[in-house]
C-alpha cells in the first residue's frame, strides 16, 4: 500500500466518523427520552395525579361537573380569639361543609351484581 493510498483511507474514515456519531447521538437521545417518559408516566400514575386529570379520554363529557376551587373561603389564621370569632368560625364551617354532607357517594350498591345483571340465575323447581 502506497503512502497516498493510506492517506486517502484515513481521510475517508474521518469523513464517516461524524455521521456515525450523529446516529449514536440520535439513538441515545431517543433512549433517554423514552426512559424519561417512562419515569414521568409512572410518577403520574403512582402519585394519584391521573385520578385528578379529566383531560384523559372518556372524561370530556364530565369536565363541566368540576366545581371551581376558589369558592372556598379561608378562615383567618391570625387575630384575637373571642366568642364572636368562634361564632363566625362555626357559621362559616357549617356553611362550607354542607357540600360534603351527603354520604351516599361511592355507594357499593352501584356495583351490585344484581343491578348489573351478573348475579346467579334463580334456581327453577
Amino acid at each position, binding site marked *: 500500500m502506497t503512502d497516498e493510498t493510506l492517506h486517502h483511507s484515513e481521510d475517508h474514515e474521518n469523513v464517516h466518523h461524524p455521521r456515525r456519531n450523529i446516529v449514536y447521538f440520535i439513538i441515545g437521545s431517543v433512549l433517554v427520552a423514552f426512559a424519561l417518559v417512562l419515569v414521568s408516566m409512572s410518577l403520574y400514575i403512582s402519585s394519584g395525579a391521573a385520578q385528578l386529570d379529566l383531560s384523559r379520554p372518556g372524561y370530556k363529557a364530565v369536565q363541566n361537573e368540576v366545581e371551581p376551587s376558589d369558592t372556598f373561603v379561608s378562615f383567618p389564621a391570625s387575630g384575637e380569639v*373571642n366568642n364572636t370569632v368562634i361564632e363566625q368560625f362555626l357559621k362559616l364551617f357549617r356553611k362550607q361543609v354542607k357540600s360534603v354532607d351527603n*354520604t351516599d357517594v361511592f355507594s357499593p350498591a352501584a356495583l351490585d351484581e344484581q343491578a348489573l345483571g351478573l348475579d346467579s*340465575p334463580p334456581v327453577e323447581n
Partner: protein
Amino acid sequence: MKSVFMSLTALLVATFVLTGLPVFAQDASEAMTDEHIARIKANCQAAMGTIGRIHAYDAPTYINRNQTYFSISDKMMARLNARLAVNRFDASALVKTASNYNDTLTQFRSAYKQYDDSMADILRMDCKRQPVTFYDKVRQTQEERRKVNEAVLELKSLIDQYEQGVESFQIQHAAQLSGVRS
C-alpha cells in the same frame, strides 16, 4: 435435636394445611354454574356500559370531594388551630381531630386510587372471553368502592366531631372568650 426439628416441621405442615383449608372451602362454595357463566356472558356488555358511566361520573365527584375535604382541613381546621395556639389556648383535642381527619383523607385518596385502577382494569377486560375473571373483578371492585364510601363516612364523622369540639371549646373557655382571661 432431631425431635425438635421433626416437631417444627410438623407444626409448619399443620399450619399450611389449616390455613389452606378455608381457602379451598371458599373456592368450592363459590364455584360457578354453567348457567351463571352464560348469564354473565349475555349481560356483561350492558354491565360494561353501566360501569363505564359510573367510572366517568365518579371522577368529578372525587375531584370535588377531594378539593373540599382538603380545603376544610387547610383553610378551616388548621387555621383555627393555629389561631388558638397563637392566643395560648389549649386546643389539643381539636388538633387531634384535625390530625385524624388528615389521616382519613389520605386513606380516602389511596382507597379511591385503588378503586379507580380496578375500574379501569374492568373496562379493559374482554368479558365474553373471561366471564369468571370479569365477575370476580367486579366483586373485588365493589369491595374497593365500599372502602371509599367508608372513608367518606369517616370523614363526615370527623367533620362533625371537629364542629362539636369547637362548641365544647367555646363552653369550656366561656369566661376567657368573653374577655375575662385569667
